[in-house]
């Protein structure tokens, strides 16, 4: 008798839990809430830190790249995908002549950007549509990577950065 009772109990318990599961999906079905982003039409703003595409910063005023060909990025790269050359210019400072970055082996680790001490390399968050039809076009040179920094992204002066850090420290985050 006990086993018969547990047989029916099991069936009823199981049936109830099936209903509970159904209620969850039905709730979502009726709520019609969706989390999909319709990509080409809707584009999400990317965080500023997004490692989308590496660009070589071009100084429009001085009409030259910021890069001085110090080779720090090439050394930091785990895959040796950066090749660059530079010459000493008329003002006595080294300037980059060729800069080649092979994006087919780049893993976007960010070491080159971190290693750069001359504000010459940067990640640009908006340029994330990087697929190409030919593998060869992933080998980009300094012209392809040329990027003029818009005014609103200009680096803040050092004092301002320090003040900001102090204020966040005070806020306790």
């Amino acid at each position, binding site marked *: 008798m006990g086993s018969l009772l547990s047989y029916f109990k*099991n069936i009823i*318990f*199981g*049936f109830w*839990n*099936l209903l*509970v*599961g159904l*209620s*969850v*999906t039905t709730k979502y079905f009726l709520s019609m809430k969706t*989390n999909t982003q319709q990509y080409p039409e809707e584009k999400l703003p*990317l*965080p500023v*830190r*997004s*490692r989308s595409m590496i660009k070589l910063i071009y100084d429009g005023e001085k009409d030259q790249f910021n890069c001085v060909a110090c080779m720090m990025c090439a050394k*930091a790269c*785990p895959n040796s995908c950066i090749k660059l050359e530079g010459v000493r210019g008329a003002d006595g400072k080294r300037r980059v002549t060729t800069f080649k970055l092979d994006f087919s082996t780049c*893993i*976007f*680790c*960010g*070491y080159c950007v*971190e290693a750069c001490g001359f504000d010459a390399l940067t*990640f640009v*968050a908006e340029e994330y549509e990087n697929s190409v039809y030919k593998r060869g076009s992933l080998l980009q040179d300094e012209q392809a990577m040329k990027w003029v920094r818009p005014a609103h992204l200009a680096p803040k002066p050092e004092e301002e950065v320090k003040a900001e850090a102090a204020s*966040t*420290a005070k*806020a*306790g*985050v």
Partner: protein
Amino acid sequence: MTDLLLSQIKLGAESQFGTDEYVVNLGPQHPATHGVLRLIVKLDGETVKETTPVLGYLHRSIEKICENRTYPQCITYTDRVDYVSAMSVNLAFALATERLMGLEAPPRAQWLRMIMVELQRLASHLLWMGAFAGDIGALTPFLYGLRERERIIDLFEMTCGQRLTYNYIRIGGVMIDVLPEFVPKCRAFLDYFEPKIAEYEELLTYNPIFLERTKGVGIISPEVGINAGVCGPSLRGSGVPCDVRKQQPYLYYDQVKFNECLETAGDCWSRYRVRMREIRESVSILRQCLDRLEPGPFETKLPPVLKAPPASEIYSRIESSRGEMGVYLVGDGTIKPWKCKFRCASFNNTYVLDQLTRGWKIADIMAVLGSLDMIVPEVDR
């Protein structure tokens, strides 16, 4: 007449129609093998006689690559060891290197690391839950899991700029300090996330079909589990306290309160329960970490060139999302590790698959495989 027929059939079975094993190749391309794992399954009808995993389809020789990279450069490759839980592997390598070189990260970095790793554990367990349910045939939890995982990944992207291979936890600290809005956003996520856990449980935990499929299936006994090197949630489902966070505390895990989730049955359902409870525990750890996060430096000053002491070695373990993650480093006084070995939980967990599935049905292979939470890149490296 019937006797004659029967005798003929018997005769036939003995003479001409010998029965044979039915060998089926599950994978390397198969909807349920979580990547490119190949299983050679010998069947007797529907019953599994033997399962032989064939590895190596995703072998990228990460250990050899690491021998040719400097210590910081290796971290970019640790992302690829287990790309579902890249932060954990980052952490494992960074901690090993720090211990090898006698470095110490500042407190803020440690708390940040803990936050990131626990968030990663949530993300990984959510993906696991979806994949496990998918293996068993319920497709909806997968989407629910991904929906919440997406928010975690957004937090990561906001912090370090990548969504899958972060390269965030570095030797001597973290890559960059979190943005000021990270903490409130993280809290908001936790508030949003907690009621969702109950929803997953409503969908799965006591669903009679789910119970049928997972209860009593693929039982790992504690002795067999320990001896076969099973680790992490899969072993905790058998009732063995094996959490590295408790046994050999790293970071500040000795300063936060959390329970080690243990179940006793050792079947797929226990492993499922352990992971679901771990999700709740992770949420509570995260809240404590966020409370205790204090301003300060996020990285130590490193020497310009990181060199390991000559003839030094370290074996450092952490609890990654999948279980015990060990990194064995041998330093030879240069900037590159002489030997780098990743001890991955999935590797050992996959090993027991054969023992667990013998005598069960073909559908149980998927349930057991799913419940072990194996990730092929971690197995093959």
